[in-house]
């Protein structure tokens, strides 16, 4: 069960006024989650000189899924690749003043979306990013 009252003000703010919704052409892109479970996140990262210049997202999912996507894009913007790798689900959750327990998987999805976009970048640029693992296809494996 979920009730709107369980969401923090920050989650509600990022859901009601999501930052960085959209797409970036020719950018690195990662898609995670699946429609069967009700959450899909797609993250676009525009990376130049090792720095994330811009980040955008599109998400199909609940309030928490949208809010974590929005916060994740905010957290990685302007960061180096190495710094972006440190944006964990915990960091996303903390930045949102927490999530209801049943919604924690949404923050995992956000972390995974960042990794998936970075993986795409590494593949396109034929580089290897230390510490980056191939993203899992199904987020349920993470739980």
């Amino acid at each position, binding site marked *: *069960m*979920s009730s*709107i009252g369980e969401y923090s003000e920050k989650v*509600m703010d990022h*859901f*009601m006024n*999501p930052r960085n*919704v959209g*797409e970036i052409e020719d950018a690195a892109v990662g*898609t995670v989650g699946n*429609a*069967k*479970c*009700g*959450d*899909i*996140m*797609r993250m676009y990262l525009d990376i130049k000189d090792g720095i994330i210049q811009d980040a955008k997202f*599109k*998400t*199909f*999912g*609940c*309030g928490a*899924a*949208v809010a974590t996507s929005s916060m994740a894009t905010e957290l990685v913007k302007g960061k180096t690749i190495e710094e972006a790798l440190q944006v964990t689900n915990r960091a996303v959750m903390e930045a949102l003043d927490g999530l209801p327990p*049943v919604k924690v998987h949404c923050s995992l999805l956000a972390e995974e979306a960042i990794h998936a976009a970075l993986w795409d970048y590494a593949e396109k640029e034929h580089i290897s990013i230390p510490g980056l693992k191939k993203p899992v296809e199904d987020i*349920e494996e993470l739980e």
Partner: protein
Amino acid sequence: MEKLIYLDNAATTATRPQVLEAMLPYFGEYYGNAASIYRFAGKSTKAVDEARRTVADALGAKKGEIYFTGGGSESDNWALKATAFAKKEKGKHIITSKIEHHAILHTCQFLEKNGFEVTYLDVDGNGLVQPEKLEQAIREDTILVSIMFANNEIGTIQPIAELARIAHKHGALFHTDAVQAFCHVPIDVNELEIDMLSASGHKFGGPKGVGIMYLRDTVKIGSFIHGGAQERGKRAGTHNTPGIVGFAKAVELATANMEESARKETELRDYLIDGILAKVPYTRLNGHRTKRLSNNANFSFRFIEGESLLILLDQHGICGSSGSACTSGSLDPSHVLLAIGLPHEIAHGSLRLTLSAETTKEEIDYTIETVAKIVERLRSMSPLYSDFRSQQSEEK
């Protein structure tokens, strides 16, 4: 107070002012135990008796066939478990449908763990149980068929008379969970050959926490709540006199006005359905177009998820519900939407709006407009929608 458009009357209804007024004296002035013998308690005893008469009349039943319970779930549990216990020598097979309320489904699962066998009938795309499927599934050892009168999510009304007749032809009892239908749809237990029926007060303007079980006097099953001699020894526990009085008052009000309310609701419901389908592309109506509760509309909007939709509707003062996983508390969307054949991702994007006789056309106009706006906004954020759009333009 900010604007409130309450379109979740299948979840619960507002207690009618006349109902509350009828209940109040039994909290204060006439607090006597309806089972006590002194004159002071007589007022309570009489009130419970009169309430039983009102409810019996509404169902075409005898007064002695109505038992007051703590609600629909209790009545469902009683009907299934007590029948299983009473008839286990005859057989251990029960038939129900895949779209029942959890009060039925989870009770059936409990019975399965305790040596009973349950067949869950499929429904068609409109949510209808097909009588021939029941005919095929029923066996010599089938003791009970339990099919809901009308579905709580998609509103589809079942061919109860036909299903009951099949059960009886094969010597099985017939129970119906009529929680959504009672006092919304005319029900005559004899005409429809119903042996047991569950109903709940708060679905038609009555109080929460009080329900009934109709139990045909020829059906011999035991008690579910053991204890005192209340309800002719079949349902122990001190009578919830205010609740019972409120239940009966709500029945009285609803039945006096049923046809008129249904006509008004149906008109608004169809206006809502036509409006949404016309205004929002890639949308489907769930449930039967005409064989449905007069107050129920249920849609699936492709490419979006239900909880997001509910939160944004709430921000606009509109209360609705959804069958998405995020609102069901599990990873799977509503079992009802899956049973009518919706793929998971479409079931996640469902919205149920349930009206009352007090709902106005202005409220529906505002709702149609708001839903259209919100769906468009969520689609503009949805990767599924952008994929769909680019696929479309490739095909062109």
